[in-house]
């Protein structure tokens, strides 16, 4: 059994969590609202080579969803690691 983590360790855990949240949500915003809505017309001037997709259209109807999946996957891995760091090897949070 590990010891109860110190208040400093907890503060560090929470700070790291917030940093990751900020980073991942920025990507979330840029990809969906940025590429899919705000700059879609500019991106539509580019075509994905070898396909009929204009880039903005692709982001709006396909790409954003793939990126959402990646973001959640990264967060799952990061938080499992942060939990282990905080609890010293046992990330089992009931």
């Amino acid at each position, binding site marked *: 059994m590990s010891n109860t983590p110190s208040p400093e360790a907890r503060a560090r855990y929470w700070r790291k969590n917030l940093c990751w949240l900020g980073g991942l949500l920025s990507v979330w915003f840029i990809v969906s609202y940025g590429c899919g809505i705000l700059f879609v017309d500019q991106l539509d001037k580019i075509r994905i080579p070898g396909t009929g997709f204009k880039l903005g259209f692709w982001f709006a*109807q396909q790409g954003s*969803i793939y990126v959402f999946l990646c973001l*959640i996957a990264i967060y799952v891995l990061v938080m499992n690691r942060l939990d282990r760091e905080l609890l010293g090897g046992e990330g089992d949070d009931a």
Partner: protein
Amino acid sequence: MLDNMFLAQMDPVQGWTLGIALVTFTVYIGIAIWAKAKSTKEFYIAGKGVPSLANGMATAADWMSAASFISMAGIISVVGRDGSMYLMGWTGGYVLLALLLAPYLRRFGKYTVPDFIGDRYYSSSARIVAVVCAIFVSFTYVCGQMQGVGIVFSRFLKVDQDHGVMIGMGLVFFYAVMGGMKGITYTQVAQYCVLIFAFTVPAIFIAIQMTGNPIPQFGFGAEHQASGEFLLDRLDGISRELGFGAYTEGSKGTLDLFCITAALMLGTAGLPHVIVRFYTVKKVKDARSSALWALFFIAILYTAAPAVAVFARTNLLDTVAGKKYSEMPPWFKNWEETGLLKFEDKNKDGVIQYTGKTEKNKDRKPADLAMNELTVNRDIMVLANPEIANLPNWVVGLVAAGGLAAALSTAAGLLLVISTAVAHDLVKKTFNPKLSEKKELLVARIAAGGAVMVAGYFGIHPPDYVAAVVAFAFGLAASSFFPAIILGIFWKRANIYGVITGMVVGIGFTAAYIIYFKFGGLMAKIGITSPANEADNWLFGISPEGIGAIGMIINFILAIGISLATKPPPSEVQDLVDRVRFPRKAFKEED
């Protein structure tokens, strides 16, 4: 004898539909009997024993309603690129759920969203505000689902729509009342399998037919085999020629598109029947991974839908526009009978003139519009797609079973939220805290039964504006729950005064704006004349569908401002927030 006559009257499509529907219904009922709930914990949150993969599938089925399955691809095929607001809006919310809500609410561990709001804001009036919102949001939604069941029954089996609703009610009644959350979860897993199979099989068939690429997601970016052009270029070309405007260009205002997408995302993250699914898993980390699974399973349909939209639109324009009415294939006449396809030969030349009648085409001339002779209901795009593409009869039957699975699974999830809100949040927590476990379970079952009846009634006698009412549900969830929960977790200083004011004003503003523009008849009764529901009259050009995003911002500003101006919450509450933020073991506790 009677049976024989009935069977003799059925065409092969109906036979397949009936057969597949019966098999799937038997499976759902079998699962419900196997997973009967024995305690309130099992009834409300499936005893916290659902593995994250299964929970992901159940969440996906819960989330994808009749509208996602039947209508969404059709809407996209009409609005083109702007359809992205539904695609991104209804998936992006899962990022917020996984990162900001699900793990913390699961760690809090009580049964419902009102539980969290009541405890975090130390007040039963906060709890009641939340309960009322949860019940209202869920009811508006469930009526649409029941109607969806009726529509599928009436179109494919020629059963009267009202009887269709009743069959659906009976089925949901059986497995929701008996199995509770546990029964619903495992039937939803089965329903997900049925609906995703039913959606992707025709999509793959058509993708191969049109592009030679079996993966629809790639296929709609590939070359159209018949013409050798890229499929999207070809569709853009025909659409422009017929006066619909290019398919891959948008027509909505950027701010409006932005706000609608935001309202749908935040609404998704605030809908009680989605949130409660994350209470059912074993561990906090399972809440995160089941959000990942849920989005994965949802994405399979949501990335295929825009492809189906393109295939169906191209097929329809190629088959119908400018062709002779007398040479139309049989499906055309079948769907004409249902009234979903209407042809009126205005210039009496026997040729179907199908021309730009979409909002996209702003500079269309009145004469062009008058020339259009074909009205296509958007639901046809998914329901008739297999017939239009000449796919085998069993595929058509499969699509009907998929539509039923989508509607039933969502209805069951919503009904459970309503029964939990009544039995747990109102009866047990507010009126009679001494209620025994056994009695509470009985109350929950009665409430679920009652909710099925009410939903069935509204399915048979739908309120005038079903679509308008669904927009309402998202706007309300976005402008009420989302800020209250986020502030509750991430800002210890948030207190009851700020949050209640924020919720009430946020909902009030959103509801007033929607009613003002969408329910003109209602407004006229109280002596107010609403202006036309169009962009020139809207606030900053934001449509009622997107106003929930503004309601949410108002909610946040008020909640933060008023919390800062009043006294901080008591220290027990700050302690509760810490417990939600950190793993249980950080406090040397087991669950």
